[in-house]
């Protein structure tokens, strides 16, 4: 039987096991929406802005490990997705983006709603393609899903002109796929893995530094095995949180710019760093010339370009983290290294650092502290919620104070740092886990960047709980201005608008507010009790800063723990306005 391009697309999505598609209609992709009208297996979620749809697909992908699917129209529909595509590219999130395109005979004519989407997204997709012939469509889609999900995952975009969607052909589903110029290396070099085991057996001060690659490859059990067998402490990147249990005695917390003192000191002092699915990002290394001066480095990563990119390593291993760790664990076990006694002195030294500078804040009895709110959310969800965040101070506090028990439960924008990521990502994660509690820890600045998606949450009754850490400021910007620009708070004050409670109600969600310590538990209880989307406006201390902090350009051992004394807490310029906020 002959099928139209649009029918072939939906049939291919079904065969790929796609359950949910996020997106937005428009002129040229209407043939697809017409097919979706009768579709039973695939649920379509109508976002309110294509960027939001993109982050929903990302949230879905990060919660499931499967590609998120986004379907948008040509021109503005497609260009609206670019931020989400770059975000997915930076965080290696598997995603397939289907964009409508003007009919092939109009391409290049500046037709209505034409944009060179393949050109625009070339540098920010793992691969992209324009399909000009309906006979190539099924193959293109098969390749898109294969490339998006295999190797180092990433976004793949398929641009579909309207005439291709309407044209009919005999549907033949390609059962297998092979791309001659693309084949990720999965199995690590055995000799190199032996070298890694050798390094481990010689180390006195080893540390495991793991990242998002552990989650992508599903290697959390192997990571746990490695750590427990060798007693090597583990630190995680912001993308890796959840890959190792947050309450585990070997866990040092997150490392990097706002990482824990003990994690950063352990990295600085280590004689062996085992990097697993992490990429030595500048937010992690600080100044590279000061990074881990005495360490030998083993680096396991599926992407050869990650190796030696920022830091020269001693034992590079290209391969899938899960496969490599399995082999490494076997070698360690059979060679007896696995039964080594713990590194007593090293563990003691780390414990000393933990005691010296634990994460800390002072709640006091006046203004509500953001860290307190996050700790309460943690306590009341027992570390089992799926947490998404926006970008800023609240994101770092969430990473510091929420102890993630399980993989794929912390979903945030690490590489690109996209404000407005949290709410749509929460919606995507909730679609993947209808019965789980999904909490978005949002910033008052960030959340308005995609606030329209509250309508989506309400429309599909996705019961996301949005906890806005409302400090009336672009807090992270304000913190930098306070520390590095003499407290000149240029354009970082957000003030009182909008009223988040009224705004939520206008969208049909429940709006709650807490301004005092005593109110936090009550509003959270209420939020978790009701079965609708909820927004909570937590009005917190506008001047709380995120510590510890490695100032840009400093080394891991140069952390700052509190506001330096010579810096005024409030800017003279904005003081009045800010005071007004506090009493509001």
């Amino acid at each position: 039987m002959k099928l139209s391009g649009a029918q072939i697309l939906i049939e291919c999505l079904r065969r790929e096991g796609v359950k949910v598609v996020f997106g937005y209609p428009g002129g040229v992709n209407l043939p697809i929406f017409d097919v979706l009208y009768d579709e039973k297996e695939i649920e379509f979620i109508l976002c309110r802005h294509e960027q939001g749809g993109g982050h929903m697909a990302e949230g879905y992908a990060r919660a499931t490990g499967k590609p998120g699917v986004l379907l948008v129209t040509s021109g503005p529909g497609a260009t609206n997705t670019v931020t989400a595509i770059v975000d997915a590219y930076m965080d290696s999130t598997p995603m397939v983006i289907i964009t409508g395109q003007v009919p092939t005979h109009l391409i290049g004519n500046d037709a209505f709603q034409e944009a060179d989407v393949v050109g625009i997204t070339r540098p920010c997709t793992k691969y992209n393609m324009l399909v000009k012939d309906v006979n190539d469509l099924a193959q293109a889609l098969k390749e898109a899903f294969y490339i998006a999900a295999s190797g180092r995952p990433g976004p793949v975009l398929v641009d579909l002109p309207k005439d291709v969607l309407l044209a009919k052909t005999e549907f033949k589903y390609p059962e297998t796929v092979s791309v001659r110029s693309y084949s990720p290396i999965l199995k690590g070099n055995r000799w190199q893995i032996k070298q890694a085991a050798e390094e481990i057996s010689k180390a006195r001060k080893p540390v495991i530094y793991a990242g998002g690659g552990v989650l992508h490859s599903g290697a959390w059990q192997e990571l746990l095995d490695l750590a427990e067998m060798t007693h090597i402490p583990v630190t995680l990147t912001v993308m890796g949180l959840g890959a190792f249990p947050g309450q585990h005695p070997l866990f040092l917390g997150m490392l990097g710019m706002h990482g824990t003192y003990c994690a950063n000191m352990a990295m600085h002092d280590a004689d062996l760093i085992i990097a697993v699915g992490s990429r030595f990002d500048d937010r992690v290394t600080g100044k590279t010339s000061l990074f881990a001066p005495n360490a030998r480095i083993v680096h396991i990563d599926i992407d050869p370009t990650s190796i030696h990119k920022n830091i020269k390593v001693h034992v590079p291993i290209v391969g899938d983290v899960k496969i490599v760790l399995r082999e490494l664990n076997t070698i360690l076990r059979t060679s007896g290294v696995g039964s080594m006694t713990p590194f007593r002195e090293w563990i003691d030294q780390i414990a000393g650092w933990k005691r010296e500078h634990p994460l800390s804040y002072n709640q006091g009895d006046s203004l509500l502290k953001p860290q307190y709110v996050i700790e309460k959310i943690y306590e009341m969800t027992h570390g089992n919620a799926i947490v998404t965040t926006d970008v800023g101070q609240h994101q770092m506090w969430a990473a510091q104070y929420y102890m993630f028990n399980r993989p794929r439960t912390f979903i945030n924008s690490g590489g690109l740092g996209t404000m407005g990521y949290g709410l749509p990502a929460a919606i995507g994660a909730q679609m993947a886990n209808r019965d789980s509690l999904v909490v978005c820890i949002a910033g008052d600045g960030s959340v308005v960047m995609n606030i329209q998606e509250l309508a989506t949450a309400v429309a599909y009754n996705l019961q996301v709980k949005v906890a806005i850490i409302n400090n009336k400021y672009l807090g992270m910007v304000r913190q930098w201005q306070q520390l590095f620009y003499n407290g000149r708070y240029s354009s970082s004050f957000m003030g009182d608008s909008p009223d988040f409670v009224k705004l939520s109600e206008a969208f049909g969600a429940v709006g709650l507010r807490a301004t005092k310590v005593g109110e936090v538990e009550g509003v959270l209880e209420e939020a978790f009790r009701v079965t609708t989307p909820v927004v909570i406006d937590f009005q917190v201390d506008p001047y709380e800063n995120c510590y510890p902090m490695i100032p840009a350009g400093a080394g891991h051992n140069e952390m700052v723990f509190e506001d330096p004394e010579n810096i005024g807490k409030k800017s003279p310029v904005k003081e009045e306005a800010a005071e007004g906020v506090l009493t509001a």
Partner: protein
Amino acid sequence: MQHIISVLVENKFGVLARVSGLFSGRGFNIDSLSVGPTLDPTTSMMTIVTAGDDRIIEQITKQLNKLVDVIRVVDLTDKEYVERETALIKIHAQDEDRGEALRIADIFRARIVDSTPNTYTIEITGDSKKIGAILNLLKPLGIKEFICTGRIAIAREEARVAAVREEGAPASVKDRRSSLA
């Protein structure tokens, strides 16, 4: 240091943009780039001349390999290879200069491919040094126009893969038969 890298790519729409975009996006230099067909109509061969320290060249070869449409990357620099480029040089040539131009062309085994009463167009093939040398000699006669293909190169023995790096990732081989159900 300058490196000469040959890159076998899928002969597909947009591949040149992917490669040049990679260089501009990551701040790598391109000194010259030439592309042409191969015996297999589904592939093209690019010769890229670039410069950088070891770390940058390692990134360039790895990043090229990471592009989905790139089939094979060979850094020819450390091996025996033959390189050529072809230049067309249009010069002023009147009166006694015409004889001088012919003599110079002869010395370099260049050919006159076009002639008007006031000009000659000389075609020369060789490596960059040779082309530089003839340009120097022709300069006094007055060069009107110069165009050059950019360098192309071929390994003398069977090309080994670029860098089979210590991590065991053949930075440049990709298994042609890999497939996934």
